[in-house]
Structure formats: structure tokens, C-alpha cells
């Protein structure tokens, strides 16, 4: 039976935006979310401030969730997972399990918005010793501490005075198989560096990088203020390893503009971990039979390459970071497009 409904898998920013758009275009959407709450990674990983207008992340996610939950055209299912799919565009039967109860949904189109996960710095030997040294943390670890205004060294609870960010952890690295750029880490690290300088006035903050990738307005809104106003130190040359030296961390690398090796002690090291496809994205791709690229993200682009929400399966679309590293702008924009394309596809079948 053909259906005009659109199933959206994932309740993060892009899933929420897709659901909202479907609903606002007078479509019917079912949003299923694995967790018991909406908001996706920004919520789960306790993001503090978004790079957009420095908005409070929980507040922003709550707004997005409210726009969905308050809309009668959207049905939200929590603790829900996809178990199987059959049918074709315009007439999919999707078996799900929501809150422990199996259910079959008849939908016309599917939007995958299962997002990404942060790179696990222990997955490959990068010598950053995330699992060995308490004071080596990731962007997400720091994000939560910043949110609580309580940035401390996990090893001893003291306030760190010298903090280094290491960029491109898990990204742009053939040795670990992730050759792509994760796109957001430069901006997030710079944003956090500003927050660190605000919260710990006498701190010295360093960002060790290969090249700072500041897309669009991130340059003037984040990077330049970080450097000019907050005196964050940007040093070209990435760190090759983090070592223990006394009760401090020793970071080693090359200062490439000086063309000299460097070896500097820090109180805390923040790994700017990149993006990898989330477990959900990997699983859903397998389940729905959509093609993945060599990194496990959903292959998008369609035949002409200019259809950024198309997957290899007709009637199944992808939004957000499930198809590759994306910032919020990208995710939300793609979500809107996916919603439009999904509706158009079901309406074509219905017509």
C-alpha cells in the first residue's frame, strides 16, 4: 500500500529539522529515536555553546525538539530502532521496535539521520595516550567541563594553566584510514579555546594544527577573535605524541614555521577528535541496503553527484552527518532538502 508518510530515523538536529520541514510542508512524519530523548549528539555529548551565535546547546536543541513534538503532523517514537525493511519507494514496510514493542510502519519514504560519532582516540596508535593519561581529554570531555564552568585536570582536580589542543585527531590520516577532514574541529577547538581563556584568565592556550580550516564566518566570528582578543596561540605543526613528564604532559612535534622540533609541557591536552560514522549509521546502512563509502558514511550525491541527500536506494534519503562530516549548517540544510525530496517522492507515487 502506498503511503504518504515519511519515516525519519534519528532525533538529532538533522532528524528534527527534517521532521519539522515534512510537517510544515503538510506531510506526515514519523520520527524514531534510539534514545529516550531528542537532541542527538549535541544533547548526548553535553555540548555547551554552539558556534552559532554562541547559543546554549541544550536550549537550542530543546527549541528544535519542541518544534517537532508540538507539531501534530509528527509522531515521535522513543527508544525505537529499525529492525528490517521491505517494499520500495512509495511503499516501504519498516519493522521497528519501540520501547520493546515490535511494530511495522508503512511509509512512502525514509530519511536517514543517524549522524556521526566522535573518533575514539584509542582506535589507532596515535601516541596521544588518551587511555593512559587522565589529563589527555577530548573536545567532548572539555565541552562538558566548560558547560559546568569547572575546567579541571582530571588527574588532580586542579585548574589547568597550560592547555594544548591537538587538531586532526582521527582525521586526515591515512595511517588510521580516515583521510577526510572532519570540518568542524578547528572551529570547535577555537571556540573552546576562547571559553577557556574566558573561564581561566591566567591560562595559556595553544592550538597545534596542520592548517586551520575555518569555513565562512567562523573565520571572523571565531578564529580571529580567538587570536586577536583572547590571545590564543596558534602553532603550525601538529603534535606527534603526548608523554608524561613529572606531573605534566609533554607534547612533541615540529614547529613547522620555525622549522624546529618542539617539546613543550602542558597541564592538559585536548584532542580535537574528528567524526566517524556512528554505529547507528553503519547498522542502518547495512539494514536498509544503502551504499556506504570506504569510511562507512552513507554514499550520497546520486548519479550526478549534485544530489546531496540521495542514497543508492530510491525513496531513501540521508540528512546530516550520516553522509559525512558536517556542521550544524550543513546538517540542517540537508535535512530541509531531504524533507522536500522525500515529500516530493511520495507525492509523485501517490499522485
Amino acid at each position: 500500500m502506498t503511503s504518504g508518510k515519511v519515516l525519519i530515523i534519528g532525533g538529532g538536529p538533522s532528524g528534527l529539522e527534517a521532521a519539522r520541514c515534512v510537517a510544515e510542508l503538510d506531510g506526515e512524519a514519523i520520527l524514531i529515536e534510539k534514545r529516550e530523548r531528542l537532541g542527538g549528539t549535541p544533547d548526548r555529548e553535553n555540548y555547551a555553546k554552539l558556534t552559532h551565535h554562541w547559543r546554549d546547546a541544550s536550549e537550542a536543541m530543546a527549541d528544535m525538539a519542541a518544534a517537532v513534538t508540538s507539531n501534530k503532523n509528527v509522531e515521535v517514537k522513543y527508544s525505537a530502532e529499525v529492525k528490517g525493511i521491505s517494499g520500495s519507494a512509495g511503499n516501504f514496510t519498516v519493522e521497528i521496535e519501540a520501547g520493546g514493542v515490535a511494530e511495522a510502519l508503512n511509509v512512502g519514504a525514509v530519511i536517514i539521520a543517524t549522524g556521526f560519532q566522535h573518533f575514539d582516540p584509542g582506535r589507532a596508535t596515535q601516541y596521544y595516550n588518551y587511555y593512559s593519561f587522565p589529563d589527555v581529554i577530548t573536545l567532548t570531555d572539555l565541552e562538558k567541563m566548560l558547560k559546568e564552568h569547572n575546567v579541571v585536570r582530571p588527574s588532580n582536580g586542579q585548574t589547568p594553566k597550560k592547555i594544548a589542543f591537538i587538531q586532526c585527531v582521527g582525521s586526515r590520516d591515512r595511517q588510521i584510514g580516515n583521510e577526510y577532514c572532519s570540518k568542524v574541529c578547528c572551529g570547535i577547538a577555537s571556540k573552546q579555546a576562547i571559553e577557556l581563556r574566558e573561564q581561566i584568565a591566567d591560562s595559556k592556550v595553544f592550538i597545534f594544527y596542520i592548517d586551520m580550516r575555518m569555513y565562512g564566518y567562523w573565520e571572523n566570528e571565531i578564529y580571529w577573535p580567538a587570536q586577536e582578543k583572547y590571545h590564543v596561540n596558534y602553532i603550525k605543526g601538529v603534535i606527534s605524541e603526548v608523554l608524561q613528564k613529572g606531573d605534566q604532559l609533554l607534547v612533541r612535534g615540529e614547529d613547522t614555521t620555525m622549522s624546529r622540533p618542539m617539546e613543550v609541557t602542558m597541564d592538559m591536552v585536548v584532542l580535537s577528535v574528528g567524526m566517524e560514522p556512528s554505529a547507528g549509521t553503519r547498522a542502518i546502512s547495512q539494514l536498509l541496503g544503502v551504499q556506504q563509502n570506504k569510511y562507512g558514511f552513507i554514499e550520497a550525491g546520486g548519479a550526478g553527484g549534485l544530489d546531496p541527500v540521495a542514497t543508492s536506494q530510491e525513496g531513501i534519503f540521508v540528512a546530516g552527518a550520516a553522509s559525512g562530516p558536517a556542521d550544524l549548517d550543513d546538517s540542517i540544510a540537508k535535512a530541509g532538502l531531504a524533507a522536500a525530496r522525500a515529500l516530493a517522492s511520495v507525492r509523485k507515487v501517490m499522485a
Partner: protein
Amino acid sequence: MAGPIKAKYVEKEHAVVDGVDISGHWNRMFEPRTIFEYTPELIEKVADIPGGESFANCYQCAKCIAVCPVDIVGNYGPRKLYRYAQTGMDLTEAPELWLCTTCKNCLRVCPKEVDMIQIMPAVREQAILTGKFVPPELQQAFENTAKTGNPLGQPQRKRDAWIQSAGVTIPIIKDVARPVDVLWYVGSYPSYHPRGIDAASAAARIFSALEIDFAILGKEEKDDADSQRLAGEKGLFEMMTEYNIETFNKYEWKELVVTGPHELNAFKNVYPKHGFERPVVHYTTFLARYLDRLKPLLKHRVEKKITYHDPCYLGRHNGEYEAPRKLLEAIPGVELVEMQRNRENGYCCGGGGGGMWMDSFTAKHTTMRLSEKRAMEAASTGANVLAVACPFEVSRFTDAVKSTGNEHVDVLDILELLDKSMRGE
């Protein structure tokens, strides 16, 4: 430098350890090149000085390095200074503080507006005020200016001695005792330096020939001290400014004509902050206005291939690129050729920002003098005259063409060339 890569090492000439002679290279140990600490506080130290703020803006794009005249003969430039500060150099105590000539070429290209024209004087002033190192030659120039009214240390009472050799009557404003159209501010080098006097005399003859109603301050004239300001001696500049403004205001005149671009910069751009806002013009701009009257006077051909050096403080700082060229083109027989770096991208002679008085200091930190580099560029055009329009430059380039073996290139002020054409020498 070309050649094998050298490492720094220590070795003991004589060493016997446990009865074994391991003198010399047998005990040699290298010294690490590693950076062991970053010193962002040294960047902030500069940025915290009023005027030094933009130092912290640098994001290492390196556009400045390509145009920095000092880097071309050494290893320098705003980007590098930022990195040096980040890796341990205290700019207030480093020799690097004194190498910038404030030529403004870096600011011209800097996307972050790191402004060495503000930073350098501010940090230098700090260094001077806190009793840090000041290059001895520069200290001498400061002391001379304070004591004798000019950086050369020449007696004030001889300031107008040069007018004897001009061959025309040069009115002293105090003596003419009436309003004049033009008050000609001669400047220290044209008043005292033998090559400067040549240009001043030429100017006097040209003004007379053009029947310009002008006068000079004579013994009342003192140095503008703008370069001393840029070299960090703001107090000295202010002292001279007060004196000069008072002197200028003592007399009635319509326009101030200056021989030197540094004076132009001082009177036009800085003195207004001290309440002096009167028309000021460089002699090239001034004479270009009189081209119609001037051309008939230029009777004699000057069969020369001439290349013109844009003074930083006439060009980049004050935007005058065309008047000097028009004047040169007006001289019959002249073939004007351009050096590769000209106008906005003109190469600095090394004299600005106090560089005029730090030649031996600068020489220590560069591979050659900037003036020599420029003289070579001039010679490369095939020109036989290097025309200049800044009193610092005649003496600098005259030395430089000699030391680079390009004596066949004459260094002449535009004034001298006009005078030559006028008088046929």
C-alpha cells in the same frame, strides 16, 4: 646560506677521561635546536603597549615577508617577529626591535592589519623608557638632536651657513619681515650634509628662477624629529614639535614646502595631532604645479637614463608617486626607466624609522645594506642616474653605489637634475 648544514656543538679542546685522551671532536656534543617552551606572554607584552595591539593579530600568512625589505637582505619581517616572540624573543630587548625601517610595505599587504608603523615606535619607546638596549649610534643621534637641534650634531648657529654657496639670495623670514607665499623648510641634511647642501642650493636656484616668493627659517629651523619618533623617541619628537610649531606660527606664510618626505609626514600627518594644521607640500608636488613655468627654464638637455627611487615616506606613506616622475620627464633628454619594485612596492633605502642612524648596527644583522640592495636594483635597469627625492637618500645611495661597484651610477636629487637642466652643467 649554501653549503653543508651546520649543527651547533660544544667540544673540549683537551679532555682526558679515565685515562683516555678524547680531546676535540672525540668528545664533541651537539646542542639541540628544539623549542622547549612557548612564550605567548612575550606577544602579549608587545600587544599590551598602547600602539602595539595589532602585533597579536598575526596569523602567519607571510604576505609581509615577501615585501619586507629587511627580509630580502636578512631574516626578518612581522610574521617572523611574531614567531620569535612566541618562541622566546622579548622584542623590547632584541636587536630585531631596531631593524624595521617603518617602510609600511607590510601594512600595505597585511590582511590582519598588523601595523608596524604603530608597533615599532611604541615598543621602541618602551625599550628606551625602561633603559633597555638602544643602539649606540641611535642614542648619539637622539642626543645630537636634543642638544643641537639636528641629528648630525652640527651647531645650530651654522644651520643657514649653506646659503652662502647657493649663488642666489635666500631670504630669511625673520629678516624679510613680511608675509611670504612659501615658507621653505630646508631640513637638517640639506642644511648640513655636503650632498644635502647641493640639493638645497639647487632648490634655492629653482625657486628663484620660478620667482617664487619664499623664505627660510634660517637659524630658527630645527629638525622635525619624525624619524626619531619612529625610532622610539616620542618625547624628543614632541619637544621638537612644540618648538617648530611655535616657530612656524611666528611668521605669516601661505604654504609650507619641505625638501624631505619625513618632514612632509611629520608636518602633514603628525603635527595636526599637536594642533598644527597648515598646508604642507613636498617640493616635488609643489614644483609639479609649476611645470608650465618650469619647462621653459629647462633649457639644457640632460642625456641620462634615469631611474627613480620612491621614498617610502613620499610614496607609501603620503601617496605621491607621480609628481617626481613628471618633473623628471620634463627634463629634456631624460629617459626614465623603472626598477622592478616601484611606486607602492618601492624598495626601502633603509633610512626610515631611525635606520638612517643605525647603519652599522643594521649591517650586523643583515647580509647587506638595504641601500646597497636598492643601488643594485637601480644599476640593473641600466640607468646611469639614480634620482631621489629624499635628503636621506643621496648620502645613502652615494655610498651604496660605491660599495657595490656601481660608481657609474650617479645619485642625484631631482632638484639637482632640474638645476642641471636649468643651468647646463
